[in-house]
């Protein structure tokens, strides 16, 4: 039940971050149409185009359903398209002028203007109804239609659906690989009797964990995807993806490039694997110090069975938590891998959208990552109840 309020709050946050971003969105749109504020066009032409675009994009509407402002403020300052004029008016309003007084004196320099005697105005509540920017935006979110991409005019949702399979493939395969290697390795590590040996292996794990992913990925690309440094190193295919054969669905296209996903998956997995090994080892050791393990030993059950059948099963919840929490982190961390390996996933989509200030796509991608994270944690909770029937949702949680 907390999913909806969480997503709602996220939506509000995204709207206001978008709104307060340091760039003028109208300038950005016009720049893409070839009209630059300081380009080869005179101010009048630019201003006309600016006002038209400002209105088209709905920026002349109030920000939210209501506003609280001193009574000398107009209904909304957004009606003034020119940002300079808007700023000047706001400064005057702060000094206590009304809009009419500002209009009469605006031709004067600031120091020539006469402030009114009574320059304090009580705050007043203004209701704007549903004709506001936030309402328009939230309706698009509810319909899961985040608008068109500012860059290419295509639906943001369509762009996301094309990119998602790549990232999901990367994340799922890296989590599977991590689990397949880290879990047995961690259990094996916990069985090493020599503390020195165990600590040495853990130290190696920490060293691997501390290697930055971007550096590892760059080295892997440089050395292992071409023969420049020796044919023997050219183990993996080139980066990027192959051309698509006609009539191929997106998932079929992803799987036709499965070989090209292997090295990025390994780079992503290695980093998390190093961390996971130590966590698994520590979890198993904690279990092995429990009383029931001593009972099992006294019963004559062999050590391997104790580790795999009893300690592992009882330590599954923290291990599962670690694996599940790796998914959202891998989603966010896919940006670097996708840029370096030239994969068209949501990480790279986010990267290019941020560079281009394409807020519709940025909002959608952030929203989607949050949604996936929430779903993943929810599924994790369900799995806990299945693994350990003693775990139940309390009434307060539901």
């Amino acid at each position, binding site marked *: 039940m907390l999913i909806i309020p969480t997503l709602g709050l996220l939506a509000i946050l995204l709207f206001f971050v978008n709104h307060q971003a*340091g*760039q*003028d969105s109208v*300038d950005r749109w*016009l720049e*893409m*149409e*070839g*009209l630059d*504020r*300081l*380009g*080869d*066009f*005179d*101010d009048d*032409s630019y201003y006309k*185009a600016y006002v*038209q675009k400002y209105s088209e994009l709905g920026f002349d509407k109030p920000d939210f359903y209501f506003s609280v402002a001193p009574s000398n403020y107009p209904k909304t300052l957004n009606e003034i398209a020119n940002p300079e004029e808007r700023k000047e008016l706001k400064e005057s309003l702060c000094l206590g002028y009304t809009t009419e007084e500002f209009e009469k004196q605006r031709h004067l320099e600031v120091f020539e203007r006469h402030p009114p005697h009574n320059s304090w105005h009580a705050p007043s509540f203004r209701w704007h109804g549903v004709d506001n920017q936030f309402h328009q935006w939230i309706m698009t979110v509810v319909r899961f239609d985040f608008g068109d*991409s500012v*860059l*290419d*005019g*295509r639906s943001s949702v369509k762009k996301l659906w094309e*990119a998602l399979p790549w990232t999901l493939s990367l994340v799922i395969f890296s989590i599977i*690989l991590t689990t*397949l290697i880290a879990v*047995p*390795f961690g259990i*094996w590590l916990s069985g090493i009797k020599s503390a020195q040996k165990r600590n040495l292996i853990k130290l190696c794990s920490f060293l691997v964990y501390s290697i930055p992913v971007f550096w590892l990925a*760059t080295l892997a*690309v*440089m050395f292992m*995807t*071409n023969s*420049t440094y020796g044919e023997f190193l*050219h*183990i*993996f*295919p*080139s*980066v*990027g*993806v192959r*051309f*698509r054969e006609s009539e191929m669905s997106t998932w079929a296209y992803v799987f036709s490039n*499965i*070989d*090209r996903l*292997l*090295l990025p998956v390994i780079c992503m997995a290695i980093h998390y694997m190093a961390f996971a090994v130590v966590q698994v080892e520590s979890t198993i050791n904690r279990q092995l110090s429990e009383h029931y393990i001593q009972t099992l030993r006294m019963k004559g059950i062999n050590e391997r069975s104790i580790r795999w059948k009893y300690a592992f099963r009882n330590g599954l919840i923290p291990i599962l938590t670690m694996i599940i929490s790796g998914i959202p982190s891998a989603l966010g961390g896919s940006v670097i891998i996708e*840029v*370096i*390996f*030239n994969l*068209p996933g949501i990480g*790279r*989509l986010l*990267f*290019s959208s941020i560079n281009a200030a394409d807020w519709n796509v940025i909002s959608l991608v952030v929203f989607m990552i949050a949604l996936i994270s929430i779903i993943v944690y929810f599924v994790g909770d369900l799995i806990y109840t299945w693994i350990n029937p003693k775990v139940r949702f309390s009434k307060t949680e539901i």
Partner: protein
Amino acid sequence: MNRLITSFFLFLFIVSLGCKTDKKVSAHDLPIKIRLKADPQKINPMVYPVSTAREIYQYIFLSLADFHPDDLSLTPILIEALPKGERITEGKYAGGTKFSMRFLDAAKWSDGTDITAADYLFTVKTANNTSVNAAGWRTYLKEISDVVLYPDDPKKFDVILANDYMVALETVTTINPYPKHIYDPNGVMDSWTLEELKDSDKVSERLKVDSSILAFAKEFNSAKFSRDVVVGSGPYVLDQWEADQYLILKRQENFWGDAYPNNPFLQAFPSSLQFSVVPDEATALTLLKSGELDLVPGMSSSSFDALRKEDESEGDYRFLTPQLIRYYYIGLNNRTAQLSDKNVRKALAYLVDVERIIETLELGIGTRTIGHFNPAKNYYHPTLKPVEHDVTKAKQLLDNSGWKDTNDNGIRDKMIEGVLYELDFDILVSASKLGQRVSLIFQESAKEAGINIELVQKEFRLIRSENIAKRDYDMATLVSTSDAAPVDPYDKWHTDNDVIGKRNETGFGTTESDEIIENLRAETNLDQRNIYYHKLQEIMYDEQPVIFLYCPKEKMALRSSFNGKSSSNRPGYLANTFEYAPVQEFSEN
């Protein structure tokens, strides 16, 4: 332990699945593979005229004329010849100028239909439809008053301008016409005249009864006409496009331009142009080395130099460095008390070691410039020499102008109208590493002469909108980019534009320079116009309104099995001219 060994072999097995499965590139494959830094997003020159898109659409949408890669001369492509401007002496447009042109008989769209004058008229009308996202084109074409068709010759037409101006010929000939029958199959724009479209009152009036142009504009702006339907007159057609991954342009079969093999814009040597979107430069270079790319343009100086050194003995690549029509400069606000002094500005010019900047930051790949006009242009001043780095001369100028350190704080100062001014400046720099490094070198040198410069980092867009536009700055590291058309200095250097919101951001201008600019703009004789250009450069050289640094060069690596043209015109190369050829001597433009 057994499980561990099993897991290890399982891992090796998985790895072996990923072993290189790439096909070797056959020597007889004729496509050329080119790196793109970013996806072009839209292929529609009117709606999205940005450089990343131009790199693609220049092969699909030809213009009537374009600037030849060898000498930047305006060269006809779709038309029989460049028109001469004729003065109109009578009639509705008396006092204006007419350009008469005719499309080549052979010129066709990629679907085989003829290119006609009606297509040109449609293009101009569409640009003037205020609901079409073509603010740039609309302003660029605002001087076109009318396009007159000839009923007995569908290929012939006249373009009427109410006022002639110096780049009128370039304006009317360098636009990319659109096929009317594809982009407006219902003939919506036919019922509107150009005069109506340019009159906002008439448009508002008519929209009350006929809103069809709104629907037309919505469709024209949409992804349909930017991605799905892309029809032009060029040698290549869009074959495949995976967003953010690659684009393939396929050579047209039986292309009409094959009849003009000497026109570089109509050549089509590669069977296809395969553009791969590779944002990361290190990845792009790896792909170049592995054979997945043939051309990597826009390289950084360090990568270019490293690859060049690496390739010295191999000879696998050609290294192209066409001159870009761009220059870097340090903008100075001539309106401040300190920088209004010409000697201070000249002293600052002497303090910038531009040679050292080119050597260290561009690894020697760059050309000094003495002013606003590119050295590649034929009106660049032939005798003026770039300002040399000379701290002694700088100090002398400052001493002569009365700037001395009277308060012993290491910074020169001077009393002006009762107020003590110090040579203490903030220089605005963006996140660009080049700008930051230039400023650091400048700062170091300026200190020797008793000038203090502090770096202030800010996002470039904000520098322009909050500081430059409002004239609220001392100095800023900036870049000026133009194209191959003759430069009109009016916007940037005439005192008419020395107001907030207009483009004379430095405050430069004298009566003499204003007069020269006005004469230059009105002059139709090219030789006389060049004389005006030279005079203006002499004044700017003397005034040093900004510190002109250098013109960068494009840096590209091309596989040596290809041979073709590079160009000063963006993007710096013409991929359609790249011919598969054995390694031989290659002369750059």
